[in-house]
């Protein structure tokens, strides 16, 4: 009881601290939820959850869904939905699998193992995704068929177009360069991971400082210098900490010992090789940064959010909302193909059931990340965090040994609970 009476005086300075740092309270909430999930599972698994190895696995398992979820944010923000991303992913990986193993080799002077094959494959795969997505967007935007129906039809169509193209067979093994996007098979290694980490940390620091200078030049209020430095320190710390964790996960000694010279060691003993940052995670970070820039700094993004907030206002302001819909669905199509590259590269094969139920994971990730189905509200980082939280729950429960039906029951309950918390949060803080 005494705690309760004291709590307001404790809370007051803390709230103002957050305000002074101008931190996004929603982001803090999501990080908080993620930390709680991690700590609970870490305790439950006797410390096996928060090992470099598991964190590494968690990140590479999240990538495919997270990439697609960034695109789903745009779709949901404009009050649409896309139920076809998992099926679209399957069609794209079927096309890419067939391209690199059957269709391209023997044509255009290309043979299996040719360095051009993976890049042509990925390029055409992304194009297929863009075209299918754009076509669905056209049906929604110009023909005014509800997105729910168009993409529900798409779910059936593209799942089975993939099946038809491959006759239901598993396609593989996939190209060696291509599978570098899968995760464990393609990582930067110790040195380059640190290079990327340090460059990213510097860029973040310079960027934050430049934003402050820009505000001052327009005579806008800025937070105190100590707060700015604190935010920069936290950001830099988070980036470098992430790199340090991924670099702490090392190849098994036996694997290194078998071929130590290839890893640049003079002898097998004491030779350790870190995995470092997987290419797939770099790809996700790149996608998330580009999508965030589109969402917050470009006209396209501004129009997406304006249309979501008030479609009539957007069209009366001279925005072509129909073409906008085509663009959004094309973006999701490209990202589904990209998610497909990561998913099939991780497996090393295209399988007939690849991406099954991914549409629901992707929508759940976006929604857990604070994207409102009523439109106009959502963030890219939220969707990425949503994907990470979902994957943590799923992996954690698998590690603990929760029975399969309970796993999905928990994930379903968490989805509903997360949205309820978000709605309550919005009510309390007044919109946004």
């Amino acid at each position: 009881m005494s705690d309760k009476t004291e709590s307001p005086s404790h809370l007051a300075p803390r709230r103002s601290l957050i305000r002074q740092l101008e931190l996004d309270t929603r982001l803090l909430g999501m990080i908080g939820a993620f930390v709680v999930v991690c700590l609970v599972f870490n305790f439950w698994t006797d410390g096996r959850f928060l090992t470099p190895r598991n964190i590494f696995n968690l990140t590479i398992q999240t990538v495919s869904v997270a990439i697609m979820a960034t695109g789903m944010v745009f779709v949901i923000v404009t009050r649409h939905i896309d139920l076809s991303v998992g099926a679209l992913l399957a069609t794209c990986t079927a096309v890419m699998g067939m391209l690199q193993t059957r269709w391209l080799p023997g044509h255009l002077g290309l043979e299996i193992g040719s360095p051009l094959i993976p890049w042509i494959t990925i390029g055409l795969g992304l194009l297929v995704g863009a075209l299918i997505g754009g076509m669905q967007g056209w049906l929604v935007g110009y023909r005014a068929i509800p997105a729910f129906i168009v993409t529900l039809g798409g779910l059936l169509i593209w799942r089975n177009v993939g099946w038809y193209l491959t006759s239901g067979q598993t396609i593989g093994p996939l190209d060696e360069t291509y599978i570098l996007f899968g995760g464990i098979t393609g990582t930067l290694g110790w040195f380059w991971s640190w290079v990327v980490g340090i460059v990213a940390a510097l860029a973040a620091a310079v960027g934050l400082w430049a934003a402050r200078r820009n505000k001052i030049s327009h005579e806008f209020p800025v937070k105190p210098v100590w707060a700015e430095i604190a935010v920069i320190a936290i950001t830099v710390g988070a980036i470098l900490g992430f790199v340090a964790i991924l670099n702490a996960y090392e190849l098994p000694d036996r694997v290194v010992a078998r071929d130590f010279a290839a890893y640049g060691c003079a002898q097998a003993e004491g030779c350790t090789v870190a995995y470092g940052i997987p290419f797939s995670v770099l790809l996700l970070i790149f996608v998330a940064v580009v999508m965030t820039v589109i969402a917050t700094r470009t006209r396209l993004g501004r129009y997406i959010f304006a249309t979501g907030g008030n479609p009539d206002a957007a069209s009366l302001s001279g925005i072509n909302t129909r073409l906008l819909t085509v663009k959004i669905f094309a973006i999701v199509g490209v990202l589904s193909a990209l998610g497909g590259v990561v998913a099939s590269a991780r497996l090393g094969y295209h399988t007939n059931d690849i991406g099954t139920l991914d549409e629901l994971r992707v929508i759940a990730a976006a929604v857990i990340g604070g994207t409102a189905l009523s439109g106009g509200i959502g963030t890219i980082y939220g969707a990425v965090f949503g994907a990470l939280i979902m994957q943590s729950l799923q992996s954690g429960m698998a590690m603990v040994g929760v029975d399969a039906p309970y796993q999905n029951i928990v994930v379903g309950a968490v989805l509903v609970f997360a949205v309820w918390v978000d709605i309550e949060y919005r009510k309390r803080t007044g919109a946004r």
Partner: protein
Amino acid sequence: MTTPLVQMKNISIAFGGVHAVDDVSLDLYPGEVVGLLGHNGAGKSTLIKILSGAYRMDSGEIWINGAKVDIHSPRDARNNSIETIYQTLALADNLDAASNLFLGRELTTRLGFVDDSRQEAETRRIMARLNPNFKKLKEPVSALSGGQRQSVAIARAVYFKARILIMDEPTAALGVHETKMVADLITELKKQGLGIFLISHDTREMMALCDRVSVMKNGQVVGTERVEDVTEDDILSMIILGKNPKAAA
């Protein structure tokens, strides 16, 4: 005689057999406020939406400054310096004032990115002039009062130097003080030589603000009169009976 700013000639539009606007001609001169009156469904809003590019007319001509123009979209209207303040305000509630003010006409940096800082600075400047009490620049406009939202909509028209302003029930959602603010602004803009089409249900307000009023009924213009030539009762009978007592007399 000066050239009319706007001439709408023989405008017609039908929706599924209903003649919403039927062979209507109207004009507007610089520095003039023309009021449009009539029952709901008389065709006022439809007529105005043709001028603002939201609807396409079936037949008729629009002349701006003595030159015939084609207005097929809201963008065309804006390119002809026509700005509209809608009854429903046409603001995106989830965006802040600056984003709304520049919606569709964002200021960009040299690299083509939206220049939020400059937009915010410009919004600060124009708001200081229009509504000095306006402080909530960072909040989404859903957090603003009716009057503050209205000033965002008006700021949009003023900032982009509209010469023709269409105001569809600009005071419908406002309190007494805010209504006064809008009235003052109309007078101010009129002095600057803008032409304003004003739609309202409030006959008394219209008599005070307008130079001429046109009354519409069933898609047609019943009559257009200078306010000093008619009484409020004349106008009311035009609205209700659909007959111009002056023309009959």
